[in-house]
């Protein structure tokens, strides 16, 4: 059967070129990057080169980027670290209601430890209002954390405005850029951001590798303590293969950036329009312009997301309903609640995220398969019957 993967925001395949760069570091160039002998120094050298490849793309100094085990660790480190470092200055944190759980759950834990957290509302398209950020600031505010691109509905947040407000008030600003890397140009020499989280597996790099950008001058206690790796800031034998793969992935992403974005946006629009045309009672979530280039997020009234996913899966199509992390529990997604959707419609959400291996044929296939699936499920649904009866 035809296989159509449309869950690139959950994870991406490692590109062949990336894998090829990684392979020598498993078996031949396996030396411990903290060791003094040649193979160790070589590993260290190539790891530092990888770091520089990435920071060149992000326009920051290599000393400002620390490798982690992924986006979640980066988020945890940034938020817990700033909370700890700046506890004596205040106990207030500002975030939004649509952050990834790696941000939200950390904030909730901090609340239990005596922090006050403001979870900002977003508008119907998922935008955080910079004015609301400013209004939430108190003399206790030590950290603002608002994501760059929402992983579920694809909305691009106004982080420049938010960062400028943070700067004006001398508050540390963190942004989770896990979905932004490779999908937006990121220029840290211009962005008013102090900490930024990244993950390799969202840009065709390996899983289990990420990074945290920490602007020079920002004090951040360690999350994982031990050996002197990462200039004493993140302990643990360095995952050199993973780091080299991450660098190659970032290189590929930005070497072909315009092409990638253009292609994705064209396909994304065709898919959204196609679904709206062929399936009634369909609602697009998020903003149509300020949007992740590969994100299609729709809600189909009267039916439930998992049954859509299962039906799609039977046709070889991989999608998600809400964030990949939460789809295990299938609670109505906190993001969809935050944009004001009712439970009935939020439960019928479908996220299809496209990427570099998506083809026009894939779009056609989904446009062909999805309408009858939705129709079949609706005909089984008591809600549909009620609604149609009431018309």
């Amino acid at each position, binding site marked *: 059967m035809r296989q159509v993967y449309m869950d690139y925001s959950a994870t991406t395949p490692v590109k062949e070129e990336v894998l090829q760069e990684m392979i020598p570091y498993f078996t031949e160039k396996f030396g411990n990057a903290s060791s003094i002998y040649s193979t160790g120094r070589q590993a260290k050298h190539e790891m530092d080169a990888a770091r520089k490849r990435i920071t060149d793309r992000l326009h920051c100094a290599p000393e400002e980027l620390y490798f982690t085990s992924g986006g979640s660790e980066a988020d945890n480190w940034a938020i817990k670290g700033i909370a700890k470092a700046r506890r004596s200055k205040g106990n207030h944190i500002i975030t939004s209601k649509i952050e990834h759980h790696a941000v939200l759950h950390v904030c909730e834990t901090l609340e239990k430890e005596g922090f006050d957290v403001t979870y900002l509302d977003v508008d119907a398209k998922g935008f955080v209002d910079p004015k609301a950020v400013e209004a939430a600031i108190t003399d206790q505010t030590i950290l603002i954390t608002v994501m760059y691109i929402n992983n579920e509905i694809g909305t691009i947040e106004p982080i420049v405005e938010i960062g400028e407000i943070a700067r004006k008030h001398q508050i540390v600003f963190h942004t989770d850029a896990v979905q932004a890397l490779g999908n937006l140009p990121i220029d840290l020499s211009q962005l008013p951001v102090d900490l930024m989280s990244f993950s390799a597996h969202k840009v065709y790099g390996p899983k289990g590798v990420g990074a945290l950008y920490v602007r020079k001058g920002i004090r951040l206690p360690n999350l994982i303590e031990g050996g002197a790796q990462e200039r004493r800031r993140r302990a643990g034998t360095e995952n050199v293969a993973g780091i080299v793969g991450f660098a190659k992935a970032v290189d590929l992403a930005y070497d072909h950036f315009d092409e990638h974005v253009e292609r994705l946006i064209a396909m994304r629009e065709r898919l959204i329009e196609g679904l709206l045309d062929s399936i009634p009672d369909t609602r697009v979530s998020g903003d149509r312009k300020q949007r992740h280039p590969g994100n299609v997020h729709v809600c189909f009234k009267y039916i*439930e997301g*998992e*049954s859509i996913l*299962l039906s799609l899966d039977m046709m070889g199509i991989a999608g998600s309903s809400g964030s990949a992390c939460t789809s*295990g529990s299938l609670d109505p997604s906190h993001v969809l609640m935050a944009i004001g959707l009712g439970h009935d419609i939020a439960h019928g959400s479908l996220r299809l995220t496209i990427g570099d291996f998506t083809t026009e044929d894939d779009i056609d296939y989904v446009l062909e398969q999805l309408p009858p699936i939705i129709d079949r499920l609706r005909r*089984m649904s*008591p*809600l549909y*019957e009620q609604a149609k009866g009431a018309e």
Partner: protein
Amino acid sequence: MNKRKGQNKMYTEIVMDHFTNPRNVGEIENAEGMGEVGNVKCGDIMRIYLRINADEIIEDIKFKTFGCGSAIAASSIATVIVKGKSVKDALQLTNKQVVDALGGLPPVKVHCSVLAEQALKAAIYDYAKKFGKEYPELEGFDPDADDDHHDLIEEIGEF
């Protein structure tokens, strides 16, 4: 016990079969009994219609379900199990039987089998009320109780 072990499927073949080709989907006009349980908030609603004859035999049964794959499959198999049975026998249906008949459900989905049991009970409750019947099995049953079955389940966890 756990039929999923050693498989990479979330659901058994039986669940997938009943999800893909659900039996007894639909409505019954002027049904002797009709019951609905669940709510939109939890993401599952099951409605069951019963055609019950004078001998208290379930002559026909139909369902409509808003919910996940296992909710649809559980509804379908529950209707298959009780169709043709007496009301008294149908009241013996437990969620465990539904799970077993489906060849197992993942722990987080067990609540769907509870819903199926409850939807059937609610439909019979409706019938009993309408036709002045009493069944000891329905004692204490409240079709509008609306428990959040999820709570119970979360503890089991998923591996």
